[in-house]
């Protein structure tokens, strides 16, 4: 009896706010409204308030200046103090159409260095510094 009463009360309420559909539809509609709104607000908060930006955009910006000093299609060596693997993939993408060789072997005419964790200019045997871009990125040229 009580169950019947609860059921009919709920039905009246559902009919009032969500007329025309059977109640299982609400299993979708209500969570979708909540989650859709929450997702938007969450992304808005991340992007607009916290100003979150992907690392790749920072790489593009950082390596834009060195790109014009690297001959197109040339191979270059790349050394970094960043251990995270995608670092190499990001630099490879940012410096197209120059072609990246990870590490110092085989040796190419140019060496691009990313040194973000220290202000010292590293030394590489057989290479001399050609340009320091003052943002952790340096271009070395083979001296012999």
């Amino acid at each position, binding site marked *: 009896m009580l169950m019947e009463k609860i059921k009919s009360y709920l039905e009246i309420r559902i009919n009032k706010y969500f007329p025309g559909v059977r109640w299982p539809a609400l299993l979708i509609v209500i969570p979708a409204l909540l989650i859709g709104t929450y997702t938007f607000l969450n992304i808005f908060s991340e992007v607009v308030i916290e100003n979150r930006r992907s690392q790749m955009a920072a790489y593009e910006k950082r390596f834009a200046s060195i790109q014009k000093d690297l001959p197109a299609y040339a191979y270059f060596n790349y050394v970094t103090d960043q251990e995270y693997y995608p670092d190499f*993939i990001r630099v490879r993408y940012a410096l197209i159409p120059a072609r990246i060789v990870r590490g110092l072997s085989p040796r190419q005419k140019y060496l691009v260095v990313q040194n973000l964790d220290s202000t010292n200019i590293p030394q590489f045997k057989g290479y001399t510094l050609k340009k320091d871009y003052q943002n952790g990125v340096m271009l070395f040229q083979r001296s012999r």
Partner: protein
Amino acid sequence: MDLLAIILPFIAGSAIIVALFPEYCLSGVCMILAASLGAGIGFGITSATAFLWLAWFDHPGGYYLMAELGLSVFLVLLASYRFRYAKNTTPIDQISSYRLSVRQIKWLKGIFLFLLIAFVASFILKAYFDRPHGAHDAWAIWNYRARWLFKGGSNWTHAFTYLNAADSPDYPLLVTGSVFRMWSILGTDYVAIPIMVAGVLAVGSILIIFSSIGILRGENQGYLAAIFIFLSTQFLNVATYQYADAPLSFYILGTIALFSLKDHYPNLSLRLLFLAGLTASCAAWTKNEGVLFLVLIILIRFIGEIRRHNWSGILTQFFSFFMGMSFLGSTLIYFKLRFAIKNDLVNQANLSKLSVYLLDWDRYIEVLSGMAKRILAFNDHIIILLIVFFLISGVDRSSFVKKGVASHILLMLLMLGGYAFSFFISPHDLNWHMGSSLRRLIVQLWPTWVFIAFYCVKSLEKNLAGEHGKILSS
């Protein structure tokens, strides 16, 4: 010129659909379906023409744009001619009595529109401001190759050289080619271009679900199905990555929706099959999983049907499908033979170890339990919500709904089987391989599973529960 580069794929793709269905395409939900599928087909065709132009002549520039403009003008003229002189005005909607008897539920439409706007706004914020270059595979594979094709000059084939297994240089070129085409015509590599390609195909998937379910089961059911996709936040997330998984889900869904329409409107079947051939070949031109989909759909929908139909009927239908897939299919074969290097999974060295992999029972358990676990956990266990909803709502057992649905389910299960097989023979660490790819593989099939579920479930309008079959048969 900038605008032309962007709108020509939409114009060309939509014109093909209007030319095929002049009597239906310019009204109601059919127009939404035509516009969404048209955008996807346009991307498929223009990505292939841009790639072929590069391979045979030079980088697509002014002359290429002229040629593409000429093709689009021709298609638009053909569509206008077909539209003006279409004599066959049989309405597409054999269930119009059903549709007319049910009024549109306004609040449902309101919620759909609200969530659509929220989805688009979330996508733009996330894709344009937070990750304008996409996620890892976008700059490792998809946009990486597009940038090489665009900036590589005479060395553009470097896009397909092998540096490591994750590069996948044999992946087909729909996404890459679309981005490359627009960058080449515009003369600069705007970050907005890959975002636009990803966004159009993601929103297109939602509109295809809404419009195809709307045609088959009524607009209210279409709104609910689309609203369910808004619940799947992983779909939004993966779309912002700028990978090929969300685009592939668009083409798989489009093909299944077209086959469903074909099952119900036999007078349109050859034209629908031509279009399904186009979308299925777009799937194959998007990602290697799409090639599996193309093979399976031919096996199930044509070879598997031979017993039930006569040979000549099947051959006529297959010819129509084949004509639709011929351009992109042959472009794909040309790309694979001429440019793509060996795949990291399907290659001689790996296949020689096949017997070792296939006789390793622990591997089966690891793969199947890993897949089951990840499928259940996908998008915060959303599959449980779908199952509960499905069980509570009940299946519509009308002959209308039963038509063709078993083959869709079989196809989707075989796709999952294909993914499981790729893990069985994977030379990579299984845990890493499944962890890094299974979520995206589920996204490829998710909109189609949602389409099938809402196609099968009983009508959710109050006055129609259980009456769908009766109305249809009357």
